[in-house]
């Protein structure tokens, strides 16, 4: 699996556009800045919704109506983050694919997506009973707490990607090498 990921990353790295983004004067910085600034749209609104579910903010606003009305701008934000995230990966594919923090981030993104789907389903099934209550039912509160926690860790992992503490080009413990997908004898990083 790690070999497959490595081979695909090397192939991507060899494409002209990848090199163009990576070596461009400003483009990589602009893509990264867009990725980070869109946090305000996507994550900011998501956290507002989660805090409402937990009863920590906006207690007088109907929780389900808030979630419904803010769904679209939040999804627009996530689409922009997804696109810029793909471009950032595409610019530096080998290092990104072999970054421990990047892999943790991807796993947590999948977990958050599943959590969001389950949350949305439970919310639409039960909304008529509690929509104006200051706090959502306990199952939805758990989902909101999971969302808050995991998204914070995702941002943390995203920030840690830039650091080289667990990079494959340095000697690492076996566990780190296994999790990061380091290939013995690889010539590119």
């Amino acid at each position: 699996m790690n070999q497959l990921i490595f081979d695909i990353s090397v192939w991507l790295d060899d494409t002209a556009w990848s090199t163009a983004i990576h070596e461009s004067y400003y483009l990589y910085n602009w893509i990264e800045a867009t990725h980070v600034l869109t946090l305000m749209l996507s994550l900011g609104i998501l956290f507002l919704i989660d805090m409402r579910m937990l009863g920590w903010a906006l207690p007088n606003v109907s929780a389900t109506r808030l979630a419904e009305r803010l769904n679209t701008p939040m999804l627009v934000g996530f689409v922009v983050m997804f696109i810029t995230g793909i471009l950032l990966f595409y610019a530096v594919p080998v290092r990104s694919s072999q970054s421990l923090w990047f892999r943790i981030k991807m796993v947590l993104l999948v977990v958050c997506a599943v959590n969001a789907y389950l949350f949305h389903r439970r919310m639409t099934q039960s909304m008529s009973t509690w929509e104006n209550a200051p706090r959502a039912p306990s199952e939805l509160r758990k989902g909101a707490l999971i969302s808050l926690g995991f998204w914070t860790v995702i941002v943390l992992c995203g920030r840690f990607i830039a650091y080289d503490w667990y990079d494959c080009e340095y000697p690492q413990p076996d566990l780190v090498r296994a999790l990061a997908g380091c290939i013995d004898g690889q010539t590119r990083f």
Partner: protein
Amino acid sequence: MNSATTRQTPIGPYPRAAIATGLLALLLAFSFSGMRSEVWTALLPFFEWMETTWFGYVGKTWGGAFATIQAGHLVSLGVLGGAVLFSDGRLLGLYSSLPLRDVIDGSHQVFKWALAVVVFTGVFMVCGVAVKVYYLPVFWYKMLTLSVGVLFAFYVRKPLVDRDLSDVSPLVIKLTAVASIMVWFTVAATGRWIGFS
């Protein structure tokens, strides 16, 4: 019935206008005279001291601690931006099915907490790289924009939106909302720019 709140203003309109004009003249004189570089030079010892504090020591010694605090800065910036976009979006007429007063008041509470965390984590980060950011023009742009944003949010926008908004001109409301979004976007963008410098 006019349900607008009445405020007692201790200073009359003419003295207020005179004070505002005086402050503006002072600000312009400061910006375009030698006073600015003198003040900047005088601040260097303070920034050198910041690097010797506990925050500065932790930030310089453990990159992981610095990165963790920076992630906290990003998350709280995200929440602040979300509160601004939500509240100002409502003022611009978006999400009209949500009650205006509750949205504005609720968002402001979130905004205050997020701003407090942003400032705290920002001070921590600056302590770690104080002398470096001292020489970065973009850092000073960010501080200026942040100051403008905070003053605008608490002393211009809040007194306006605390009123009964049906009494306020829609153009003024929308202009205020757009200005608020622009200021906080610029704060975030200049902050990101520091990272590239």
